[in-house]
């Protein structure tokens, strides 16, 4: 994904924020990789030494929401979430930016409400010292991370909010700070790039 190269303060803000999102996504990736190592270790310990890792299942369960919310804003910035693009890809110029503005605005509303809802949920867990069923792992840290993930997403949506307003005023300006939804051929192109990276030309020819 190539971000716009403009050097306005707004473009710099977008790029700077993206760096934060990117690092958060790497934390999510680290959780994903540790999840794999943890599950392998559990099988090894259980089958070979007959001593399962205590609390492993609880840990795995807690890791899923943690992973899901560390990467939330990054996925949003790269337009990675599922949507129906039928109408969006038919629209152009101001109409397109208005439609995007509307759904982004609705997203802001839901994110703000979810921040409140999940924060309350975190506070409850923190105050009563709620833990997981088996291993008694405290559940407030992942709940806090969910709220933080929503906050990071809110920042991203607010940047997009400004970006769409700018584009509604100047529909032909370079899009800055807004996720651009890939068309089917964009998706095809990026799949092709990954395949090209994975299978080098000399390798593509299987020998007989």
């Amino acid at each position, binding site marked *: 994904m190539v971000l716009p190269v403009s050097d306005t303060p707004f473009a710099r803000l977008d790029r700077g924020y993206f760096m934060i999102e990117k690092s958060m996504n790497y934390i*999510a990736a680290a959780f*994903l990789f540790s999840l794999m190592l943890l599950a392998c270790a559990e099988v090894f310990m259980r089958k070979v030494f007959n001593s399962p890792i205590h609390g492993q299942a609880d840990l795995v369960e807690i*890791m899923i929401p943690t992973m899901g919310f560390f990467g939330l804003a*990054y996925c949003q910035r790269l337009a990675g979430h599922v949507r129906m693009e039928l109408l969006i890809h038919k629209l152009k110029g101001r109409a397109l930016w208005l439609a995007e503005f509307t759904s982004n605005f*609705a997203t802001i509303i839901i994110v703000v409400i979810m921040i409140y809802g999940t924060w309350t949920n975190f506070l409850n867990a923190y105050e009563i010292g709620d833990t997981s069923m088996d291993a008694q792992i405290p559940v407030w840290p992942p709940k806090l991370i969910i709220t933080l993930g929503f906050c990071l997403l809110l920042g991203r949506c607010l940047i997009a909010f400004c970006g769409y307003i700018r584009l509604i005023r100047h529909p032909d300006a370079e899009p800055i700070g807004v996720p651009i939804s890939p068309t089917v051929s964009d998706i095809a192109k990026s799949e092709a790039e*990954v395949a090209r990276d994975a299978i080098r030309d000399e390798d593509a020819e299987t020998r007989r």
Partner: protein
Amino acid sequence: MIEPITIGLIGLGMLAVLVVIGMHVAYAGAFVGLIGIVLTIGARRVRDGDIFDVIEKGWSPGLLNAGTVPFSELAHYSLSVLPMFILIGYMAFHARLTQGAFYCMRMWFGHLPGGLAVATVFATAAFAAVSGASTATAAVFSRVAIPEMLRYGYPPGFSAGVVAAGGTLASLIPPSGILVIYAIIVEESVGKLLLAGFIPGIISAVIYAASIMVRVKLNPALGGEKLGDVTWSERISSLGQMWGILFVVAVIMGGVYTGLMTPTESGAIGAFVVFLLALKNGMTKGQFLNGLAESAKTAVMIITIIWGILILVRFLGFSDLPNVIKELILGLDVNRYWILLAILLLYGVLGMFMDAIGMLLLTLPLVQPLIIALGFDPIWFGIIVVKMVEICLITPPIGLNCFVVAGVRPDIPLSSIFKGIWWFFVCDVLTVALFVAFPGIVLWLPNQMLGAN
């Protein structure tokens, strides 16, 4: 006084509008779900009063209720298999498994009519055993198999069609992301669904291959040049190129079948082995980090849409709408297969406009109760639905797999790929009909699962 069912209907209408104007499915689901939860809770508490009384009574409990969803619905062990399967797929890219599978299958099936095309279909089926992503499978095989088919004189549109269709097998053959998502949304056993996908996946591949052979017999120009003869010892030794794939199949199917390992654990071991193979094959640090970041992004996308839709599902439950719709349709005096046909056609149409995950998550909360009430098996229906998703992957106007193949091979025009695909479309329709007529094909293996009732 507002009836919850009215709120449910208005909610569905609003959801449709939001999704069509391009709001992300996850947030559109959460948005409608949240408002709906507030209103339905309020409506149950306020017997006489206007809309503001309803909102006032429902506001605080509604928000708290929705706020618990992300944690309580995501912190489930069965969900953890998804990131593992995604990881296997990304690592498999770099593990040289594609070329190995193609080489081996070509040794075994190259002598048949249309041999290279048949080998491509079986190689995609084999690669599907380490990949749950149809588009990715189509992309790598476009790099590996299409040049070979062209070299031996297969027509470009036909070769591209073989790869695009073969790629769809990844959705069915475990590890399959979409089957896990189905299992989670309808609360069925992930292991059973994974096992259920195996035989139908192989049958789909065999039907593809058979259709290729028949077509080449009828029109030898499709088949290109014949390959040279291969000895049995060459065949046997070519299996050595497949051991990575065979190992992953054994771990995932074996682990799930015997119940000795959870699907997550099987997936994790599979991912670890494929990761080691990729390292051995010279995966760079950059490729590794990229693959990991992309896996995380895909996992986040799926996790997000799951909690978003589950907020919607909670609201639909409060509104009792799924039940009412179910009763309404059950009240129709028609054979249940007509209703099934209507549902499948609905998926065929929706799939033209939507990504598979979005389509399933938006429809299943309403469709699933109906299917069960009609006396169909939910595991079996999962396989049928995924088969429909595969069909959507190769049908215009979206036909994502065809676009992916055209993306890798810009020299083959999209129109000729769509022309090359249409026989495979017929095969898929026949396959679905076969599974509908004989549900036992789908259900036999999962019912053999150890410890299953």
